[in-house]
């Protein structure tokens, strides 16, 4: 199936949306981003590359996990509010079941010292996962100097000084918006 101008002609129905996002949720071990793109663009042909990039751009500018926002927007675009709800439920269903299974296993073995140690190691490693991902994204985002300063300020305020996030964002976001509009005007 080629993803081209015909994309909007074949609007997927609710069952197709449901199975698509069910698959994204289930296959997204270690992050749903890449698998979401694969299924939406390559496998189902719901959007072409450009359409997906545009959608992703909007989703990044909104709070919430990107894939969750993609599910809401795509569901609404194709099938209205029911479509958005369908995609959201489908995306979350399998991961939540897996999560409950993992949590129950943890509960069953949590009195065993090895289980505690393993999970402590997993926690240390999971922190490294986030650090490595953040570092990779930071170095590849092609940030301007003001953007590096914004990133550093956010890291300092919330990571080092441990300030509450709401006041930190109420200062950082307006500053970022001013800097972004100034730099956009210059281009």
């Amino acid at each position: 199936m080629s993803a081209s101008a015909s994309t909007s002609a074949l609007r997927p129905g609710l069952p197709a949306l449901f199975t698509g996002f069910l698959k994204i949720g289930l296959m997204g071990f270690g992050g749903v981003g890449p698998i979401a793109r694969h299924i939406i663009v390559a496998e189902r042909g719901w959007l072409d590359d450009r359409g997906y990039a545009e959608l992703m751009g909007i989703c990044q500018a909104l709070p919430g996990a990107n894939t969750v926002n993609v599910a809401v927007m795509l569901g609404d675009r194709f099938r209205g509010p029911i479509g958005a709800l369908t995609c959201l439920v489908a995306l979350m269903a399998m991961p939540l079941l897996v999560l409950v299974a993992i949590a129950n296993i943890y509960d069953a073995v949590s009195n065993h010292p090895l289980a505690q140690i393993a999970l402590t190691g997993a926690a240390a490693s999971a922190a490294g996962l986030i650090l490595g991902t953040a570092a990779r994204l930071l170095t590849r985002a092609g940030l301007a100097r003001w953007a590096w300063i914004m990133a550093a300020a956010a890291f300092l305020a919330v990571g080092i000084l441990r300030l509450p996030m709401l006041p930190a964002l109420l200062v950082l976001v307006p500053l970022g918006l001013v800097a972004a509009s100034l730099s956009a005007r210059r281009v």
Partner: protein
Amino acid sequence: MERGVLGQLAITFGAISLMAIGGANAVVPEIHRQLVDVLAWMDAPTFARLFAIAQAAPGPNVMLASVVGWHMAGTTGLLVATLAILLPSSVLTFVCSRGLQRYRDNRIVRIVTLALVPIALGLMLASGLVAAIAADAGVFGYAVTAATAIVTYRSKVNPLVPMAAGTVVYATAWALGFV
């Protein structure tokens, strides 16, 4: 008591939902602050372990809220916390989706993205730091954190691979008496 916890889960994660630029990976420090410092529901290592469980499960990163809800109040807690972190941001996305389709105002989207991406990345880095400290895994734990970070930064391998390796290495070091 039960209702109090559920209500608090809804309020805490409902508010965090709207601050989660780029998802839950930006708000780990705030979730930590709320659960460990403000509400005193758990100690830092417990929080770090729940964070690890959420990372190991498939699906969007907002599931950190789900596992916290489950830890505090079982299946009901899981559902309440999940809905709380999903609903506000999803409603906002839904409203914006319709508004943007109507106006096609790409300029605003571009500027907002330009402004938020660096903030989100700075917050993600802060999340990693806070999670590493919360794990409380000692010097060897920091070594595991650093090694996982370097592998994740350098290779495109599925993140679960370095995480599984880090877990095994740490448990082995413990068994050999290094930790």
